[in-house]
């Protein structure tokens, strides 16, 4: 095949003249950019245990698509493997589309990495198809994409094949132009697999048809009779009469909001005050588009280049105050890992991660019932105390009582869903060593040290064989608790948690009832007694 074919057979060109630009290995490019890896990394993206895409360095080592991950690691030492994330492709391709849309209107994203544009308008404006393609290449080079291929042909199918044909050129040519009407000639030598219909390809090969040219030579009516509508469409594509045209996308409205602060703000209240207007505009812009934001992504950038990112969920949808609250909480931090920022905030970026239709969330004429009131009240408490201070609880699996209770901040995803941060153990699994009988009413968040002695005043202990040194006679639950005589007791109930793990625990549990009729649950670990819970 040569890039510049002689003039094709004259004829009508019913297919849309299409400029297709293609960024090879887009998932790899996206992953490299997202994780800030050097371009020569041997990287594979893994989807369901198999290699989905691999970088040029990995390909040189013999890795290819469809290998099992172990096999790929054997072929290429130092292989970096990441899970494949389709959403990441989409997200990182968006700036590329936007950059091209700035110079050529009407871009259709076929998939991330592959875009179609009607060639007619740009070629007239820029004075020729090659000039238009050069402008595209220069624009993409300006945003850091140098390895882009452009194909121009009749119809999207032929244009895509033309863009891919650049691989087979010797020099660094990035552009293949098939003259108008040349597509059937250009496609004729291609194998049948490029049609993307494996069953049809197998069938045709059995009939002795090996290339698109052979297929195109069949009569259209015969193909339609024998292979049905799908076959007829493939036949038209093979003849260069692509039925598809370029459907330009409507550029989505810019819903995210950025607030820049100069000089940087060092205090949370300053930031909250300065952000209030911007947050209001952000929510109003969403509302004008008929949308509400239910999941918000907040990223904070500081003067020294640190970034703090977090995804916030909302039980209903964000209004301006909620947005400001989330930014504030992100700065205050609910745990030590959250606040690592050392300098003033220069930029706040609000991205609506999930938007939903306003109509689905509209208030009823008389309000939406009591739960709306609940939410407003709790949001007020949250804005006073912080996001993690208002909780709901679920019961998880576990042997120790404190493990069985999992708190979820109000507004976060209920446990058990995929988006939940803390994986919740299943309480329906058998948990050998869990407590029989009624559950204690008080489970101490931090175990309270206790003292248990026998009738002679010696501490009670359990040896390695699980034997009790003496019957407990007196105990005190807590450091400032008086000495209580034991009325009845049971134990030791051994709990050997994760014996294979150095962090596992070996405990003995006791139930004790004192003479006033109150019951306690005590733990003996490493010769030390703790009150785990009280039945009060």
């Amino acid at each position, binding site marked *: 095949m040569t890039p510049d074919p002689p003039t094709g057979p004259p004829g009508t060109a019913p297919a849309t003249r299409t400029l297709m630009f293609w960024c090879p290995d887009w998932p790899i490019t996206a992953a490299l950019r997202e994780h800030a890896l050097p371009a020569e990394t041997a990287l594979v993206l893994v989807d369901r245990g198999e290699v989905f895409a691999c970088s040029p360095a990995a390909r040189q080592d013999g890795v290819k698509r469809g290998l099992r991950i172990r096999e790929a690691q054997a072929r290429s030492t130092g292989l970096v493997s990441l899970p494949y994330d389709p959403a990441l492709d989409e997200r990182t391709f968006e700036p590329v589309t936007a950059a091209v849309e700035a110079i050529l209107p009407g871009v259709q994203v076929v998939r991330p990495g592959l875009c179609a544009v009607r060639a007619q308008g740009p070629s007239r404006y820029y004075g020729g198809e090659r000039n238009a393609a050069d402008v595209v290449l220069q624009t993409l080079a300006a945003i850091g994409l140098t390895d882009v291929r452009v194909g121009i042909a009749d119809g999207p199918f032929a244009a895509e094949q033309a863009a891919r044909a650049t691989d087979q050129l010797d020099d660094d040519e990035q552009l293949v132009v098939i003259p108008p009407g040349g597509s059937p000639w250009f496609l004729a030598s291609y194998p049948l697999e490029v049609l993307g219909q494996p069953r049809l390809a197998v069938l045709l090969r059995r009939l002795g048809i090996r290339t698109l040219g052979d297929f195109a030579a069949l009569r259209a009516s015969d193909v339609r009779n024998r292979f049905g509508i799908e076959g007829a469409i493939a036949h038209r594509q093979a003849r260069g009469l692509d039925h598809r045209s370029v459907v330009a996308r409507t550029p989505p409205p810019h819903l995210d909001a950025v607030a820049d602060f100069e000089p940087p703000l060092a205090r949370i209240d300053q930031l909250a005050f300065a952000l209030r207007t911007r947050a209001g505009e952000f929510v109003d812009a969403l509302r004008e588009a008929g949308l509400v934001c239910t999941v918000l992504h907040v990223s904070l950038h500081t003067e020294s280049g640190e970034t703090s990112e977090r995804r916030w969920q909302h039980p209903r949808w964000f209004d301006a105050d909620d947005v400001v609250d989330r930014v504030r909480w992100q700065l205050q931090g609910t745990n030590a890992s959250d606040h690592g920022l050392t300098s003033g905030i220069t930029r706040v970026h609000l991205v609506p991660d999930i938007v939903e239709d306003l109509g689905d969330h509209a208030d009823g004429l008389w309000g939406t019932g*009591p739960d709306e*009131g*609940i939410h*407003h*009240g*709790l949001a*007020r*408490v949250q804005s*006073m*105390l912080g996001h993690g*201070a*208002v*909780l*709901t*609880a*679920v*019961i998880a699996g576990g042997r120790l*009582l404190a493990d*069985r*209770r999992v*708190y979820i901040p*109000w507004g976060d995803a209920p446990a058990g869903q995929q988006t939940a941060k803390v994986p919740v153990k299943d309480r329906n699994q058998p948990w050998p060593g869990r407590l*029989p*009988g*009624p*559950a*204690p*009413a*008080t*489970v*101490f*968040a931090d175990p309270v040290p206790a003292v248990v002695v026998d009738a002679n005043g010696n501490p009670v202990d359990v040896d390695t064989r699980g034997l*009790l040194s003496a*019957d407990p006679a007196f105990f005190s639950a807590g450091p400032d608790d008086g000495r209580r005589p034991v*009325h*009845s*007791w*049971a*134990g030791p109930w051994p709990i050997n948690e994760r014996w294979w793990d150095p962090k596992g625990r070996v405990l003995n549990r006791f*139930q004790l*009832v004192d*003479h*006033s*009729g*109150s*019951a306690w649950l005590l733990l003996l670990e490493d010769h030390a007694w703790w009150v785990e*819970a*009280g*039945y*009060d």
Partner: protein
Amino acid sequence: MTPPAAGPSLARDEPSPDSEDTFQPNPADRRGTSPADVALGLQARINSMQAGKLDSRRLPTVPALARILPGGGLQSGGSYSVRNSTFLAMALLAGPSATGAWCSVIGMPDFSVEAAQGFGINLERLILVPDPGPQWLTVTAALVDVVSIVLTRSPEHLAPTEWARLKARLRQRGAALITLGNWKQSDSTIGVAESAWEGLGSGTGHLRARSMKITATQPSGRLRHAYVGLADLQGTPAGAALRGTALPPHLQHGTPGTASGTLFEPRLMKSS
């Protein structure tokens, strides 16, 4: 080896010794004799007698407790203090929660949600604020606005004016406030006067059931008490109506519980 089922404390006589703690017939007697104190005390007494007279609406209550609570159940707008038992507090929450009301627990990091679920409290409608810090009053007031029943540790200090405002809010919103711990400003004080666990021997068995004598103060200052088992408190308000104070079946024929049959006959007494 079968231990005696009931603790020795059950042998104590009426009246319950806690009546002095929870009720002051005339607070002015105890305080200073200045006219302001007398007026304040009288006002407090008038308030306590007025509370929940005409406008009171009853929240669903576990029958075992409804019998001894003043007014025949939890009053919306009422305030109750549970002296010494989280189980009792959970039983008070369970009635409204079973009918779909939202409940809230403030300032109790040790509250066991597993036990709460055992009482029939709907965890999806249970809001926990374990650590309100110094903003206890604000948080409690904010939650009183939106939930039907609030359980909290009794505050260390609450000025009478603040309490009056919170009380007005409770009455306006129709919510009930339950405090755990001694709190003299509440309408009624409930507590476990005597208790015995069953099922535990010396080194054998495990805790199975509990029998309790529960007392509640009335607006008149008298004490009412009832003998209930833990399982009675865990019954739903509708389903357990017939069982009342009767012992649950598994206690009646269990070997460790034989002695308790005579001690805990279903009866309801009033003491003066």
